[in-house]
């Protein structure tokens, strides 16, 4: 019997074992592979999606339980990487291998939806369920702060400089004098 839900804004119906975790329905049945398998026990957060806006571990969520609900995956976050969290992630070169980052981004988005300006402690609390073996935590923390700035309502003169790029933040690499021009450190070359 088919199970129906809204997936990334569009109606979706699947005829699978109702006990199958949403993760495998997304990845194998619907070939939406942006949501990752990491542990199968809700321990690592790689499979995080939003169900009616709530960050949820899809690896332990039976597909039957999302019937009639709204599911958002990394693919549905924006059509063009324009979500402030995605922008901040790109700006700070957060990912290394990138495998956990869909889950990190979905958790970060859910945090910012509820708390527009989280503190370090609030970020630690909200993100502690997402493991990154490459060790990108410091940049994730910085990028969430940056996304909060990008997400904030524009100050006094909205749209006065539509083409202005946000000031790039300083990364952790406080280079020793003479190594490179710090301005080039943040300007990048591949945009």
């Amino acid at each position: 019997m088919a199970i129906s839900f809204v997936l990334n804004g569009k109606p979706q119906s699947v005829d699978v074992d109702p006990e199958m975790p949403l993760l495998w329905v997304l990845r194998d049945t619907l070939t939406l592979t942006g949501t990752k398998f990491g542990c199968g026990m809700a321990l690592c957060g790689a499979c995080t999606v939003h169900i009616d806006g709530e960050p949820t571990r899809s690896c332990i969520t039976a597909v039957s339980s999302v019937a009639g609900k709204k599911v958002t995956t990394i693919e549905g976050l924006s059509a063009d990487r324009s979500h402030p969290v995605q922008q901040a992630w790109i700006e700070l070169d957060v990912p290394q291998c990138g495998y956990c980052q869909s889950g990190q981004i979905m958790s970060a988005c859910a945090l910012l939806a509820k708390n527009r300006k989280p503190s370090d402690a609030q970020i630690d609390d909200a993100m502690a369920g997402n493991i990154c073996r490459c060790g990108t935590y410091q940049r994730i923390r910085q990028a969430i702060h940056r996304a909060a700035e990008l997400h904030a309502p524009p100050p006094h003169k909205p749209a006065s400089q539509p083409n202005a790029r946000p000031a790039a933040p300083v990364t952790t690499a406080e280079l020793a004098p003479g190594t490179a021009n710090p301005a080039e450190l943040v300007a990048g070359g591949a945009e």
Partner: protein
Amino acid sequence: MTPTTTTLNRRTFLKTASAGAAGLVIAVYLPDISEARVATGPTPSGAFAPNAWIRIGTDDSVTLIIDKSEMGQGVVTSMAMLIAEELECDWKRVRTEFAPAAKEYANPLFGLQGTGGSTSVRAMYAPLLKAGATARAMLIEAAAQKWDVDKSACRAENGTVINDATKARLSFGSLADAAAKLPVPKDVPLKDPKQFHLVGRATKRLDIPDKVNGRAQFGIDVRVPGMLHAVVARCPVFGGKVASFDATKAKAVRGVKSVVQISSGIGVIADNTWSAMEGRRALDIKWDEGARAGLNSANISKYLAERAAQTGAVARKEGDAAAGLAGAAKKIEAVYETPFLAHATMEPMNCTAHVRADGCDVWAPTQFQTFSQNTAARITGLKPEQVNVYTTFLGGGFGRRAEQDFISDAVELSKAAGAPVQVTWSREDDMQHDFYRPASYSQFTAGLDAEGWPVAWTNSIACDSIMSRFFPGSVKNGLDESSVEGCADLAYAIPNILVNYQLSETGVPVGFWRSVGHSQNAFFSECFLDEVAAAGGKDPYELRRRLLAKSPRHLGVVELAGTKAGWGKPLPAGRFRGIAVLNSFGSYVAQVAEVSVNRKEGSVRVHRVVCAVDCGRTVNPDTIAAQMEGAIVFGLTAALSGAITINHGRVEQGNFDDYPVLRMNEMPTVEVHIVPSENAPGGVGEPGTPPIAPAVCNAIFAATGKRIRRLPIRPEDLA
């Protein structure tokens, strides 16, 4: 150069190769790469492909071929930067593709195609600059011929050849057809590094945009038409085999297609991963557990201690350590121990294979394409050149993906199924069937003179040998240099040194783990050096400075880290510092850790890590910083919680609940400082890992007066 790796000593070929990097490999025609999902067509006619790494289309497209595996260390970008620096293409238009398995892409440092040992930049710095320069020279020559001027009147910039006298311009694409018909010049001069506009400048990574929207394709994301999904039930005991099995219930699970026995166990093939996992749960298997069913961690530890007490292979000998000890005013002794460790890459092991009568496709997150190709050829009976290896992004590598067990699973399963099959390992499969960082045991004695300066140092190490399995020819007279690296090459000016190695065989499979022997040996040697400092009444930072006075690059990072960390200056109440330094993979790294210890709770908190790195000439400084940040996290996990324990021949851990790894709420502030250098490039993927455990443990001693001599750090060792 095409050395046979099995007969080469690893250190020797690293030295040889870094002395004279391999010449530019010129391929007649580079076959196109087609990936499972993102298929690209054949090279368009008129395209310019002067060598194995560059393809310029008549539409001005620039495709750079990346022959190293991207596992987060930024090689897609750093390799592309090296080519583009000399090619003078438009960086904004650069596309990259992963190279197929082909002899043109043999890593000059290994003699086969693979990524590991922090070699990518070290191996490819000169060849890729040259590949770019050669292509640029041909484009300039093509333009000069069109304009009928001397090539010296022309230069290339941003994807265009320019004649400054006439202001004429031709795009690379418009020159591609003509350039493709020219002979490939030899010995094209390279730029003075002072002229570099890309290499050495922090550059945004090319692979990031597809890593923020789910588009980056990892091995586990490969989807090919008609593909089936499989999991394998493996004997929980190392070396065990299937005695018998009953698949009746498994075959009744919805979605299960077939159940087959392969060399690693019983494979369950289904139309989705979940059904395969459910089918596996329903299998009834009787195992022949074999000879290793009695293995346990306590016995292994005892065995390694006994081995370390025996005389082994001499790994380092300076002066006369016995005489030095006999004449010492003071002697100290200590034994150190580290456990087995799993890699726990975020992407569990997986591979997709399609075996046909006339060929085989393998889509894999592999670090060693040559091994993957050979593995599939061996299983299928095909020739290696009939095996296409498509490298995907790797969801972490850390050495685990140098192994081929996930490749053979997929190839054997596809062969049995007669269809494309993707094998996926569960987290438990991954953790319990790893090739572990060897458990190691290290015994030390040091002698100090009347002023407290060290005059003798002996060290005896016992652990499994990784090279005995991987590159057996490199192990000579019982010495595996990778087992003692970080101890045998002790940089301190101590007149009498003796380091021994006892090659041991615990029965636990071992493999390369980020920074290999350095990962545990830096903990041993840098903590014991701190013990020597304390015994002699010396400041650990000042002792290092004195004993490294004739090792300028060690000294440089020690002083930079010490200065930036404010060594000797007051800290907030309850905080303490520790320092460690190591040279590994051609780079020098010193770290100062700031910690606080809650002795009542038996917990330690790392607040701040100041890291100084001298990795020679840099390619992408921001990637260097990122690799140091990540390597510190990797080493901190090992120091604070990492332990694989064995009981009844089985690994006792299975998932992130009993193999905890560092999380966001435990993340210290990390500051990275890069020493300006014109030395040859060093590695950056691994050298950041070894110093963190000793830096933290030395800080704990400063806080508590107690030495941490075994990892992970236990609450009772802090009390």
